[in-house]
């Protein structure tokens, strides 16, 4: 619930949707950050949807009507971003790569969010030995470097080799294992806080069952921070996927385009002056992650009334307002455990 709208009816649904409501209450520098992030993210999503239209060639296409593609060709009319050592068109691979990234994000987050939220609710509400065991397990998972875990998972699931879905599932599963504790932690903390709220006690007093209390009273109130975690996790998922690909545990170029894999193959090119094979997939990763992170960070700042900039009462605009020094609980929990490649 948005505690700041004190008066009037509940706003129409469209204005209460996460990103839209954030946009409406942003101002100055914060709005700039959010808009930049949104533009990058929307561009990324559009690319995904329109990949078949935008990309001139398939992700595994090595030849067309005019013959086999030349290897390591510099950007030119036929191949606007050049070709790789294997003869793939760089531009097409970068475009198709966004599809892989989105599928991995969706599958990974879908797998982790349900389990994490359910476990968090149970653990926080009932407490006791269940809580202790789950927290220890979550901590144990945190203790592993996520990339190592992802590699192990990838070997277990597909023995390191992969088809499209095999590779996707391996990556997503590996990422999900790392994310479940994050959702678990956040939901558990919220549940413990809400459990002591008078409205939960009042439900207990009238004789509501535990399932009813969890489902009706705690769940909706505990999941407010999820859009935020989702955004931040999405960028982490891309980084993990790219990391796996870079280390050679990714998806074969014949099954799908994957930025990390292309970067790996571009390593040898870098020293011989062939810059286009590395720069473009790299830029794709950076821009996508930057976009998602900007959206996530802005949402985090805008969620917190203390960090949110406002038009001053006289109508003057104070400079930006919120930095990102102070953090909300959810963010702090994430930050502490955040790992990068």
């Amino acid at each position: 619930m948005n505690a700041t709208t004190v008066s009037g009816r509940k706003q129409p649904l469209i204005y209460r949707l996460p990103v839209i409501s954030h946009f409406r209450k942003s101002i100055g520098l914060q709005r700039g950050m959010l808009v930049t992030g949104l533009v990058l993210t929307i561009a990324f999503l559009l690319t995904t949807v329109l990949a078949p239209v935008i990309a001139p060639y398939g992700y595994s296409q090595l030849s067309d009507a005019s013959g086999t593609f030349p290897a390591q060709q510099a950007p030119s009319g036929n191949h606007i971003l050049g070709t790789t050592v294997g003869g793939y068109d760089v531009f097409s691979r970068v475009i198709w790569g966004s599809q892989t990234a989105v599928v991995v994000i969706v599958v990974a987050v879908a797998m982790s969010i349900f389990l994490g939220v359910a476990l968090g609710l149970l653990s926080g509400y009932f407490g006791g030995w269940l809580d202790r065991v789950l927290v220890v397990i979550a901590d144990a998972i945190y203790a592993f470097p996520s990339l190592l875990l992802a590699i192990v998972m990838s070997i277990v699931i597909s023995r390191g080799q992969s088809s499209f879905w095999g590779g996707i599932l391996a990556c997503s599963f590996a990422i999900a294992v790392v994310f479940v504790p994050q959702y678990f932690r956040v939901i558990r903390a919220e549940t413990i806080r809400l459990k002591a709220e008078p409205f939960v006690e009042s439900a207990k007093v009238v004789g509501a069952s535990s399932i009813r209390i969890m489902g009706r009273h705690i769940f909706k109130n505990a999941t407010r921070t999820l859009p935020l975690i989702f955004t931040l996790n999405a960028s982490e998922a891309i980084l993990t996927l790219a990391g796996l690909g870079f280390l050679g545990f990714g998806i074969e170029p014949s099954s799908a385009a994957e930025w990390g894999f292309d970067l790996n193959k571009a390593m040898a090119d870098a020293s011989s002056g062939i810059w286009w094979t590395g720069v473009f997939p790299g830029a794709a990763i950076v821009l996508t992650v930057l976009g998602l992170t900007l959206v996530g960070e802005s949402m985090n700042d805008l969620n917190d009334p203390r960090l949110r900039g406002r038009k001053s009462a006289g109508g003057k605009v104070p400079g930006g307002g919120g930095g990102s020094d102070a953090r909300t609980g959810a963010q702090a929990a994430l930050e502490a455990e955040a790992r990068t490649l």
Partner: protein
Amino acid sequence: MTINIDPVPDRQQPTGRPVLVIDNLKVTFATDGGDVYAVKDVSLDVKAGEVVAIVGESGSGKTVTAKTILGLLPETATSSGVVLINGNNVVSVSAAKLRQIRGRDVAMVFQEPSTALNPVFTVGWQIAEGIRAHAGGPGGKRVSARDAKARAIDALRKVGIPDPETRVNYYPHQFSGGQKQRVVIAAALALNPGLIVADEPTTALDVTVQAEILELLRDLRDKYGTSIVLITHNMGVVADLADRVVVMYQGDVVEEASVKTLFAEPRQDYTKKLLAAVPHLGRNSASAGMTERAHQGGKVLVEAKGLTIEYPGRLGSPAFKAVDGVSFTVSEGEVFGLVGESGSGKTTIGRAIAGLNRTTGGSLSVLGYEMLNLKERTFKPLRKDIGFVFQDPAASFNPQLTIGDCVAEPLIIHTNPSPAQVRKRVGELLESVQLPASYADRFPHELSGGQRQRASLARALILNPKLLIADEPTSALDVSVQAKVLELFKEIQQEFGFAALFISHDLAVVDMLSHWVGVLYKGKLVEQGIGHHVMGAPRHDYTKRLIASLPVPDPAEQAKRREDHRALLGI
């Protein structure tokens, strides 16, 4: 400058030059919902040695006015007008100048002493911090650490902390709540400012401690000629301490008068309404005229015999006895008032009856069910006969559900009604608590505090319970709202005829509603009896002290009570 710790021999008459002048002050806050005009146009002045009380309900702008005096407004606020302290306009001075003014010319006493003190430093350090922040030593240098500590000891002695030489090295947690507030006052006094702004200085304190702090503030004024701006919503405190009263309502000054005039002949309607709403001990007692306990013919709904409730201590320390051998009964149709200060165990008893806390000893029988071996499954059928009203109406409704859903919840859980039946019953109940039935579709944040508490009452009554437990139902509300809710409670109790356990720290409120009153002190029930007997002629020492400490909203009567109180404590 040097501080003057010698008492001013004769209290300056409050006719001298003003130490604080506020002229046409306006404060506006930028919020998501547009600009909020917190203070619209306030002008007032405070003379040397004068106690000016600013009273008003929540949202009246009294705290914002107080914070403006020290320049403590948040960034989202814009203020205009003049706030003159010793010739400096706080609204427009530079940050550096403001820092000099704070502590030296004006100091603040906060509401909650436990959060106003930093737990990781000794109180001496915290008092000295203010002294050393100003170049108050010889030759305009900083005060040395040793001198500052000596002054901190002096300040602690002034506020009546026993053995200040030792206790200057104590940490805040080693003091009780009242002593912590004394320390905060000592810190405010350290540089001997001419003006102290006290924002609800006694609201977080128990009534017996409140009496001591009020005594201390009065002493400061009398001995050192300090002017005090007292922000409070408690009319009893105003009657006890203030010389002059400024009544604020929605950002404007409604009325300004000397304390005697204001209480005797208020001019404005708002002031009249406000004063009429203040509960006054000994007036409007529910048990007036009773000579023996009422409702004894009916069934006994709650019976406690030697009830003991312990909270487990930490490893190695013994369990904490929140309730210690308490025996009482509540019969059908009776309103049992439970009074006590914080930590007396009154809320614990209420929660135990509702099955929210476990009892650990003795016997507590609720509607014939022995709570000592409480099993949620077997107790659940009885829950429909117990209603519970919580203290904070803002927190006791799920913000995601409509009022209708919240009120209907007990009905849906215990019976299996059709949606039409639910709507009808919710509508009826809302009407009986004097809310329009259309409010069922609203969300809790769209209702005011008093409306929410009425809805809360509706929820508790929807199943026609035999027993209602009301835990401080009005202490989060403004007085005028409180008066309406209490009136409603009384009416509904007579109409529905349920038994009620009414828990409150406010003696006057309990007396207005309860037929039979029990007084709790440190987990023990020290006295119980017919309401007006307990309030009028208390027998136990603690009850006597409690009642004598309670300030009544009438300056003349309060002056007399103060003398009695002093006599009782043997001062």
